[in-house]
């Protein structure tokens, strides 16, 4: 199976975020990491390749810093990488990101494309489904299991409220992968060493420019959300805090 995994670099979970001057995006000077759901998507692709042989290709878009997620993926076992390298990609909406990816993989013959179920920065949860529609492929979302069968694959979709559903679908297909589908591996020292010699194709903005257009949705302003709830801070040394909490549990909330 030949599998493409779409990955994204996002600010680290506990990184303090600062707004840019226009209040339309965050400042670049934060620490970044791989979008966690995408790490599960990569792991699943590697497992499928180990079971069925084939190739795992990873793709991302973003400025040079985004190459880090590709290097990590190569170190974990991906075979090659594609980097749409330009800071302009950061500002694209899901529709245009999917269009840029579709343009960059023209000529490739993938059986499957995986994405994480959503990103930790925008959180639109759309790029995978849009990509499927652009390619004319079937898709399934929030996937917890993938088995190959005669006609294609059988996937397990997570539904809400603890329900699941198996879906049979033909290949090629796009799947968005749920976090927790598998256990993530760490890169080995050998893997990190080998990654340096694996192919990484850079795609410039100009190469996909004709495929993308104006954003269909625009962030007018980004801001720190207004608090709707009054929050009382409990402060002091740990022992004092513990006493204050118990006092509240007992006298205000009456749960003790």
């Amino acid at each position, binding site marked *: 199976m030949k599998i493409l995994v779409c990955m994204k670099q996002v600010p680290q979970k506990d990184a303090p975020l600062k707004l840019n001057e226009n209040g339309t995006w965050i400042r670049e000077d934060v620490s970044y990491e791989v979008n966690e759901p995408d790490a599960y998507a990569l792991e699943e692709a590697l497992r499928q390749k180990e079971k069925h042989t084939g190739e795992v290709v990873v793709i991302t878009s973003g400025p040079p810093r985004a190459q880090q997620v590709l290097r990590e993926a190569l170190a974990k076992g991906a075979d090659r990488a594609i980097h749409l390298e330009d800071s302009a990609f950061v500002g694209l909406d899901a529709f245009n990101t999917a269009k840029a990816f579709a343009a960059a993989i023209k000529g490739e013959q993938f059986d499957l494309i995986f994405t994480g179920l959503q990103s930790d920065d925008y959180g639109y949860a759309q790029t995978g*489904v849009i990509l*499927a529609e652009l390619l004319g492929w079937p898709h*399934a979302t929030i996937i917890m299991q993938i088995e190959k069968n005669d006609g294609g694959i059988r996937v397990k979709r997570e539904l*809400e409220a603890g329900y699941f559903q198996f879906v049979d679908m033909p290949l090629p297909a796009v799947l968005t992968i749920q976090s927790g589908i598998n256990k993530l591996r760490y890169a080995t020292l050998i893997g990190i060493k080998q990654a340096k010699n694996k192919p990484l194709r850079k795609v410039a903005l100009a190469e996909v420019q004709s495929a993308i257009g104006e954003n269909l949705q625009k962030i007018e302003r980004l801001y720190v*959300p207004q608090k709707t*709830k009054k*929050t009382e801070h409990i402060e002091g040394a740990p022992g004092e805090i513990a006493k204050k909490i118990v006092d509240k549990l007992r006298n205000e909330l009456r749960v003790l």
Partner: protein
Amino acid sequence: MPDTILVVVEQREGKLNRVSWETITAGQAIAAATGWALEAAVAGANSSAIAAEVAGKKVAKMYAVESAKLEPYTPDAFSAALKQLMAAKSPRLVLMPHTYQVRDFVPKLATAMGRAVISDCIGFRYENGKLLFTRQMFQGKLAADVSFGSDGPWFATFQNGAFRGDKAEAGASAAPVETVSVEIADGVIRNKPQEIFKEAKQTVDLTQAEIIVAVGRGIKEQKNIEIAKQLADALGADLAASRPICDSGWLPMDRQIGSSGQTVAPKLYLALGISGAIQHIVGMKGSRTIIAVNKDSEAPIFEIADFAVVGNLFDIVPPLIEEVKKAKAAS
């Protein structure tokens, strides 16, 4: 012809998914702000009963979009059916609840029409004739007002709990229901869904819990779950967790709170090392009192906490266990 807002309600196993009432409320609020007309639609193999139920609300018209091929749900059939409805009725704005099912087909539908979806919104603003949708970004740390950059139809989905379903206004009289038969050609539907099922494992019912102690990433290691358990035991509370803890296998999946787990509303929710990603918050924001302990003062959990402790849970939980035990012994 005035501009129209179309709310697409969700049918699940032949019943109306209650979250749809919230979207009706949202549609009514946007209609009031903009002066646009409000209509609603439901899609399914047989949706007349749901259409009649929704037609009782204050909407100008109700569409029952029907085809035998809409049952069982597939993204291919829903996208094809609703695309035909959009072509026939030309709404300016289409609203849906941000459910797993909507997430599965609405980006496909919008893309097929060359349009965008502003997903998972928590509110809207109508400023100088411009409609903006508010959504959380960066896991709730920031919010954004987002506008559409193209012509309609515009698609937006609302987060569970963003509007009050019980505030959906009833109409003076039932709205007319129009049945819209759609053609879905052979070969359009590629996926073959099987029966929906629940995992056959014992399920912990956290919805009845009076007190919940929940742990998140801040617990750091599996062995540290123990101190949260001790606190839960001392309080007579149930132990729960955010998704990453269950993904790591540190607690079973049936102890997960959030959009993919259980939705709870206990008297007290004690959040330990939980940052408060949206997916978690939707599952617990109905708690009567929320106490949050987190070392990151900017963690979104503090936005909804009644009591905030900015500090290291490993410093605070051990003395808290002792104080709770003392208080229990004294009472």
